[in-house]
């Protein structure tokens, strides 16, 4: 059953007050996301060590990712089960990517054509 058919009693704690506006929060998050994207683009042209740039890009992307899912997708305000459900899929996906990269990144996995 969705919210449309919910009984008023179910919403009693919220019936008397208005929800605080998230407008400013969303605009601020969008600005932060834009700034991070700008930083990412600049970073790849800076003369830093490759490992440092890759690490920074991964961290900045993770920050953007988390900001979107927790604020724009409302995980911050929703029940924690939604977060758990999504992270089950996310962890499985990241595990698959990591396992495949480790497997194919091993020396024995280098194709003969690429090694030439």
């Amino acid at each position, binding site marked *: 059953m969705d919210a449309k058919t919910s009984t008023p009693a179910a919403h009693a704690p919220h019936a008397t007050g*208005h929800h605080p*506006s998230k407008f400013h929060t969303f605009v601020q998050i969008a600005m932060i996301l834009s700034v991070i994207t700008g930083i990412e683009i600049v970073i790849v042209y800076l003369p830093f060590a490759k490992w440092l740039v890759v690490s920074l890009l991964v961290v900045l992307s993770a920050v953007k990712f988390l900001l979107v899912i927790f604020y724009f997708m409302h995980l911050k305000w929703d029940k924690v089960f939604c977060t758990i459900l999504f992270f089950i899929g996310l962890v499985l996906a990241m595990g698959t990517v990591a396992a495949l990269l480790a497997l194919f990144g091993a020396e024995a996995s280098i194709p003969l054509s690429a090694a030439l």
Partner: protein
Amino acid sequence: MSHAGTIDHHHDATTSTGIPNKKLFMWAFLASDCMFFGALISTHLIYRLHSPPGSPVVSKIFSIELTSFSTFILLMSSLLMALAVNSLQKGLVKSTRHNLLGTIFFGLIFLGCQVYEFNHFVHEKDLTLSNSIFGSTFYTLTGTHGCHVAIGVLWLVLMYVRSFKPADPSRPWLARAFVHFFLFVITTVAGMATVLGLVHALHEHEPLVEFAGHNLLAIGTTIVGLTLLTWFGFSRQPVEFGEANAIDVESMGLYWHFVDIVWIVIFTVVYLLEYL
């Protein structure tokens, strides 16, 4: 219509989980879609890890300016989508419609950029789906993401048209909704053809008069379509759509934001890492 601010949009005491079922379904679907994109991204990375001899120099193919612009557009569309959900949770239907239209517009810009990018890669950089492994994995990954965006835009349009459903069930609505929807689709296709034609004309230094002559049908259809859509949008009759439908818009929003977070990963992994 319910009174604004009377519904708790984050908890539903009538379900065993306390979460609206539509939202729970969407989170479960997105979790599975994570694995789908995880497989596509890892395939692309594995083949980039061991590029076969003769692979193209990717940093000379990509246009960081265009991709950055697309990323910014998609981030801003996510903002508008979040604002659309926020508006409807307060019962503000008109504001919701404006934000939905903005999200559709930005989604279409993103798709237009992707069409331009693919066209540019195929015709000017000689990167096709089948002439290199990089081309195969790149087009499969970004094309699948583009399909997700296109489905999202279609869903947004359907939700926008639905927001005009009259509160009075005796008023005919289905035929009007079909006309509204197809008008939206035809205008969108004609509009995109016009814009892409204009970009091509500017790129080729073609005179604008010549461009207008070649694209008269598309330009005319776009103008007529936009006029009719504006007329459809000025409906003042009471509508059924309201705060109780916020869960529908929120579920759609979850999908749209997911498309955005997938692009955040693709932008870093597929595009930015090539410049190192």
